């Protein structure tokens, strides 16, 4: 399969990259590992005039602890994250999520955490060849006015299937977006639009530079379901974080629940998580209730567009959240 034509730009520094982005804006795309971008280009889903490669920007590959935070450069490979003790111990959900991305020997070296977060939304009516998409009306994401996944839908229902984003949102991560002469830090939970066509609230001249993961204690876990053991996107996933009360070690002080692969973005379910406040780590009944509530909330968003049946995926939300909560509680006890 041929890639469409483009001009390749290989900046040597971040500043150069930001300069180029500022100049070319919508006409340019950032190339990191290429595992999402190049596939989409091969299918004719986008045809950028310029690719700005991060290949030389080693300055964007790092994992470091600063104060109560873990800072991860956006170009850090999935393999490096899996190998990091720091992340395994203090941001376990991210480590667990990264292990599920792609396949061990290959995508892990190419795939980057930034690329995983910015992996575009998917839909089995949209992520298809030019040929497949011809001979019918274009869908919303393809520049048209129709949704094949949900009848009469006035907007795009493509699904965010990023493992990394789901885990990071559960961990309360922030991201740093850089542009020429400017930087802003955004809570990952606020990074999403409600539009499947352009799911991220990022400007064309901005570059995802860094991920900041709070590491103030707490136990996290990530669970996902896919049809096979590797090279597969999740059909449902869940990331959770449990923070314990400072005075009583077996009591949950705060909780976060995020459900992924069910909507246009990972779903941050604050209300469902708040029901866990003050509950014991061993209270699996409470976990079950929170999980069921998560399912009810998430189900409203989902459409049948990433394989498996919709009903099944909805039911599995509850199971994934429940398992993640149990796993996090287990980890907290240990």
């Amino acid at each position, binding site marked *: 399969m041929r890639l469409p034509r483009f001009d390749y730009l290989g900046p040597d520094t971040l500043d150069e990259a930001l300069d180029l982005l500022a100049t070319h804006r919508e006409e340019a795309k950032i190339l990191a590992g290429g595992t999402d971008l190049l596939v989409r280009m091969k299918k004719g889903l986008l045809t950028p005039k310029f690719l700005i490669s991060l290949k030389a920007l080693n300055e964007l590959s790092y994992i470091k602890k600063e104060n109560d935070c873990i800072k991860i450069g956006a170009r850090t490979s999935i393999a490096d994250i899996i190998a990091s003790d720091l992340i395994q111990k203090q941001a376990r959900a991210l480590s667990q999520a990264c292990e599920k991305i792609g396949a061990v020997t290959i995508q892990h070296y190419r795939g980057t955490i930034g690329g995983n977060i910015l992996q575009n939304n998917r839909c*089995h009516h949209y992520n298809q060849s030019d040929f*497949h998409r011809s001979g019918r009306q274009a869908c919303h994401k393809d520049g048209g006015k129709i949704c094949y996944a949900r009848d009469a839908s006035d907007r795009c229902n493509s699904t965010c299937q990023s493992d990394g984003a789901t885990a990071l949102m559960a961990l309360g991560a922030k991201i740093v977006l850089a542009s020429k002469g400017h930087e802003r830090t955004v809570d990952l939970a606020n990074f999403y639009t409600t539009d499947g066509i352009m799911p991220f609230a990022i400007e064309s001249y901005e570059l995802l530079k860094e991920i900041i993961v709070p590491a103030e204690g707490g136990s996290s876990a990530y669970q996902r379901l896919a049809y096979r053991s590797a090279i597969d996107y999740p059909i449902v996933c869940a990331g959770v974080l449990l923070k314990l009360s400072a005075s009583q070690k077996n009591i949950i002080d705060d909780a976060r629940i995020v459900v992924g692969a069910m909507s246009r973005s990972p779903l941050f379910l604050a209300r469902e998580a708040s029901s866990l406040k003050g509950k014991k780590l061993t209270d699996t009944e409470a976990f079950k209730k929170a999980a069921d509530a998560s399912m009810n909330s998430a189900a409203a968003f989902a459409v049948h567009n990433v394989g498996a049946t919709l009903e099944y995926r909805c039911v599995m939300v509850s199971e994934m959240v429940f398992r993640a909560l149990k796993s996090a509680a287990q980890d907290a006890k240990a």
Partner: protein
Amino acid sequence: MSDYTIIGKRMPRVDSRAKVMGKAKFTADLKLPGMLVGKIKRSPYAHARILNIDTSKALALPGVKAIVTGKDTEGVKWGVFAYTRDQQFIQTEKARYIGDEVAGVAAVDEETALKALDLINVTYEELPAVFDPMAAMASQTELIHEEFPNNINIHVNIDTGHVDENFEKSYYIREDTFVAPEESYFQAEPYAVLARFDHDDCLEVWCPNGGPHMKSKPLSNSFKIPLHKVKIRKIAIGGAFGGRSEICPADYICALLAKKTNCPVKIVFTREENTIATRQGHAMITTHKTGVDKEGRVLARETTCYMDGGAYSSTGPIATSVPFLSMEQAYRMGSVRYNGYRVYTNKPIRGMIRVHGRGFACGLDTQLDMIAEHLGIDPVEMRLRNSRQPGEYTSTKSYVDSCAMDETIHKAVEASGWKEKWGKLPPFHGIGIGTNSVQTGFPMGIRGGSQSFIKFNEDGEATVMSGVVDNGQGNDNMLVQIAAEELGLLPEDIHLVSADTETTSSDPGSYSQVSTFVGGHAVKIAAANCREKLFEVASKILKVDPGNLAAKNRMIFVKDNPEKCVPIKKVVRVSLLNFNSVNAEGGYWPKVDMKREWVSNPYGQMCEAFSFGTTIVEVKVDPDTGQVEVLQATAAQDVGYALNPLVLEGQFEGSVAMGGQGGMLTEYHEWKDGRCLNPTMLDYKLPLACDMPKIKNIIVESLDPKGPYGAKEAGMSIAMSAAQGYSAAVSNAIGVHMDSFPLTPDKILAAIKKKKSKAD
């Protein structure tokens, strides 16, 4: 049997060295001087009349060398059988599925060819389309092919008589319906074809194929040139699984472009094209009504199957029959009535696939398990009471000679620990058994036989010529092993010339599991004839009767006095000095009933041998997610005789993967208005290394009297029975007999919940 030197040994394959070095050339790897890139314009509509094709803009594009449309084809329709000629290689009147060929382009490079495809302007008038066989039969809209009323392409009716009266005699009768969607081959190598016309106006073609001679005939017909002018060349092939036996429209389009441009043209399919525009496995809706006596013996069965055939006939009559035949071979039935309907729909074309009729077969086995449960009989015992025995005739009057079906059951039961496990496993942990039978060959008229030639070179090495093709299963090695054994040479002394229509005689191809039985047999006979010639000469040198000679390790020696010997090389040279070349030929034609025909007369001897297989599978089901973990698969097959256990095990293991793990758990197609939603390797879930269970292989030998060294088909009976074993194991684990395949987690979870709610 231990007398063999090379046959029966775990011999590494002769083709693997080139393959591990990256030297083996597949079609897409070839490059010829002046070669152009070919691409095919396909219909984006499921059913549409072609009103006009405007190629002017595309032709004006620099770098475009030729465009072909239906106008270049004289509108000839092709079909495997005289009564199924329904497919043009490039459509002239209408497109019948999304992917149907409308035009071809040859250009200097891929980019230009793709751009040209976009510039070809086809005006269509969309027609109402049907995507479901039941709807297609009832449809009042324009027929997909006007000569086939109700969109019924093929109807196979088999009736042994006495069905109704035997139902009346039955102690217990039940009727169940089973459904299964389409599946695909996903050969590792996407389809590709390279064609050129040489200096003698001969058409030379390289492409993955299930039999070069099956490709040359339709090309000879289409181009109206004699067979000797169509030279299908040998090339490494990245898998076929039944999907590459027939002519592919791309073969014709590629050759036509080569003719028009006078340049070599290469077409390489995308993965999507390989999925939608070659063949797929049929979707099926099957109803089995079965009557048994008190002991569970089947007295009467009525099976009705509706198969979604897609847009064209392909091998329709065969596909409509084979699931039934596998059933009637495996199990004895007092009487049976079968009605198989292959129905046209506006979906991709369905053809043969390794596990022909997985859903059908699994339904039958599931129903046997249901009956066994009702009667309180163990599933193993249920099968033993109905299993095929040697010396019997099948319901359609094929004599079954060698048959060790019971032995495969007993050995698989033993090795899997069935007796310790059946009924004793913890909840959601299950074990299941499947048994099946596959035919070694179909009646193929004048193309059913194979012929081989062998010539000796003066250095004592031999060249073997055979039409047999190797799709990856190891046929080249099989031929070399047989020739080396018979000639008394080492495998490295054999030079194989095969799968080339210029230098080899007609051969049925790697089709209907017949390569060893027919093609290997021909080589065995040719080599034995050649050996006789060597012995004639050697007997004069050694001064003994030729009958007392044997050959081994490049030597001819006296049987009871091995010290007395002469090198084969010397025998060859002596022969040449005496003005006698050393070469021979040999052929083999299976003695089948030539009057047997798939539709008009489905009775008589089908083939000379049948293989039998049993697979027992153990699984654990996660009751909260419906996900299945397969713990172990035990595969036992009666292969007649194992020419090379190393290769056979590989066939068994691949069969468990494709037939069981993929076929019964994860592989199926999803559609939206005739568009295949999962044509790629990302979305169609092929099993991976960490998905696969431990596999125990058990080779059972029955020494078929007709087969070479007693060998018959190997592997396919495992693919079929693995699907059944997987399905039975999951059903056993969850306590629900499943009737919709494959068994995806959503269906399993729903079944568990339904059972629970009933119990509550």
